[in-house]
């Protein structure tokens, strides 16, 4: 339950605010997830580009092993995204999994959270399979090669932009209750007693 607040009263009973209706916002998490899916589909890094990257940078004798791992990632994406969402969504999911795991040896807490945030609940075995396959693929390439590939997506997201206020010294200190040293004895009836204001 919301705590009683002065500003809550002012929002409700004064005429100086925009009266917001929050009742329609109950499904905002679902809307947000679908927006993220849309963004994922628009990413510059596509599944086809990952396949081309593998083709261009590996010997043919390594192709068979790597192709098997690529298929594993795509299969895992199908399990996580859901086959009913179509090939485009599955491939975008596979790109997301590749980006998430390309520097990871195992599925950690952060990766689990990231996948869940994007797709909702998912089978952990699929995530583990995708992680292992991505790790095997990544081991064929240098750090520079992988960075160049992944940056295709990050440049579009503007991660290199200047962050407003990055140099501002911010304090987390907040107004707190004063420390009261004096507590009256419970049940004391002396209304004239002076209570110290020096806390």
């Amino acid at each position, binding site marked *: 339950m*919301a*705590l*009683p*607040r*002065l*500003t*809550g*009263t*002012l*929002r409700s*009973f*004064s*005429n*100086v*605010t*925009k009266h*917001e209706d*929050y009742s329609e*916002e109950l499904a*905002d*998490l679902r809307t*947000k997830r679908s*927006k993220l899916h849309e963004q994922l589909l628009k990413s510059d890094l596509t599944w086809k580009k990952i396949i081309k990257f593998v083709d261009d940078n590996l010997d043919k004798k390594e192709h068979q092993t790597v192709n098997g791992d690529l298929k594993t990632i795509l299969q895992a994406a199908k399990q996580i995204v859901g086959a009913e969402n179509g090939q485009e969504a599955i491939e975008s999911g596979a790109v997301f999994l590749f980006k998430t795991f390309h520097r990871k040896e195992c599925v950690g807490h952060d990766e689990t*959270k990231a996948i*869940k*945030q994007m797709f909702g609940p998912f089978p952990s075995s699929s995530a583990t399979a995708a992680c292992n396959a991505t790790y095997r693929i990544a081991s064929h390439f240098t750090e520079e090669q992988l960075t160049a590939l992944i940056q295709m997506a990050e440049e579009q*997201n*503007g*991660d290199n*932009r*200047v*962050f*407003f*206020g990055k140099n*501002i010294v*911010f*304090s*987390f*200190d*907040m*107004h*707190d*209750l*004063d420390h*009261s040293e*004096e*507590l*009256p004895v*419970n*049940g*004391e*009836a002396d*209304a*004239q007693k*002076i*209570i*110290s*204001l*020096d*806390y």
Partner: protein
Amino acid sequence: YCIQIVETSFTHHKKKKQLQNKTYCHPEIKADRSFVLYRPPPVVRDPALVEEFLERAKFIADDLNWLLALPHDKFWCQVIFDETLQKCLDSYLRYAPRKFDALLDCLPEVNDMQKCLHRSVFLTFLRMSTHKESKDHFITPSVFGEIIYNNFLFDIPKILDLCVLFGKGNGLLLQKMIENIFTQQPSYFGDLDETLPTVLQVFNNILHKCGLQCEGASAEPQKLEEKVNVTPGNMPLQELKDIVLYLCDTCTTLWAFLDVFPLACQTFQKHEFCYRLASFYELAIPELESAIKKRHYEDNSVFADLWRRISHSRKRMIEAFHILINQVCLQPILESRYWHLGSVVLASYLIAVVGEIVSSFSGLLEKMNRYSYLFLRDYDELFPVEDDVSLLQQASSTLDETRTAYILQAVESAWEGVDRTKAQVVKDPT
């Protein structure tokens, strides 16, 4: 709906002439981002609730970081036209836990995420209150004033929330932000003026809930079925807790605002705020304290918490009163703002000023019940009235001694029958 927001000026090197590049802001430029609403950390460590909090918070943190990294013109387009962003920020101000709320036992990752959000929200409001971001990126002050006001980017409740959430650690920066908002858009003074009757009504409502009647309150007809004999002493404990929490939040928020933006004091005084605050204090505090002390508690920590909150509220009310008196009466004289006007004008001004102080206290002099002069005594204990009067006397030798004597006499009367040395011993055991 298209707004010209940015005027980027630069010098054309060949012609050595100042050129202006006007940028226009249009809803179509806004990105379709869908900000989610903020919800506070869960009160209990339920894994599902914690997870939902973290998911929401991560979405907001990522989105605000994206927003803060946008170029100047795109940032303003988003801020003006993205209603989901405005609701997200507003929900944070409404529901972000204050440190003086009940203590939350949060998981470390919840605390870390909350801190991350807290900073990003502040930086977003900082950017929204800055019309000149760099020498090349700025908004004309008058246009800036219109944008923030017409789009409700800031309003009085939001400004109060900002003060209570960020005023302690980031006071200087917040002071600049709020001064700039009020300077570029003086309509906010009008809004504050319109808001104050509602603030005073909050005090009246608290008195009403305690079965007390405030002076000057409108005598509304009472519903027949309404309980009229409810007092803090016999009301349910939860109701008493709610009243004390509400009082604590109200006093802290008002004080935090006046502390950051003392220029608001003149508007407060238009509503006789000093007098109304002191009257409220005189009526409500003894009643609530007595009820808290007399009640039987199964858990003594509830008693300690209520007592701490009521003591805190007392102090904040007195400090708010002091800021008001200081800003409205004392500071102009100490800064010698009126000295150049000559002794006659100065004397008249001082009389008016002292009159302000006296009228703030004099209503209390008329109340001769068992709690009489409580406010005056408490105020004098924290901010000795004698010191203020002495400052006034030093500022002008033409000050009417009858009036100053009246004030000092009032303070003396307030202490009559009370052992001042006992109070001082309690204050300082050394």
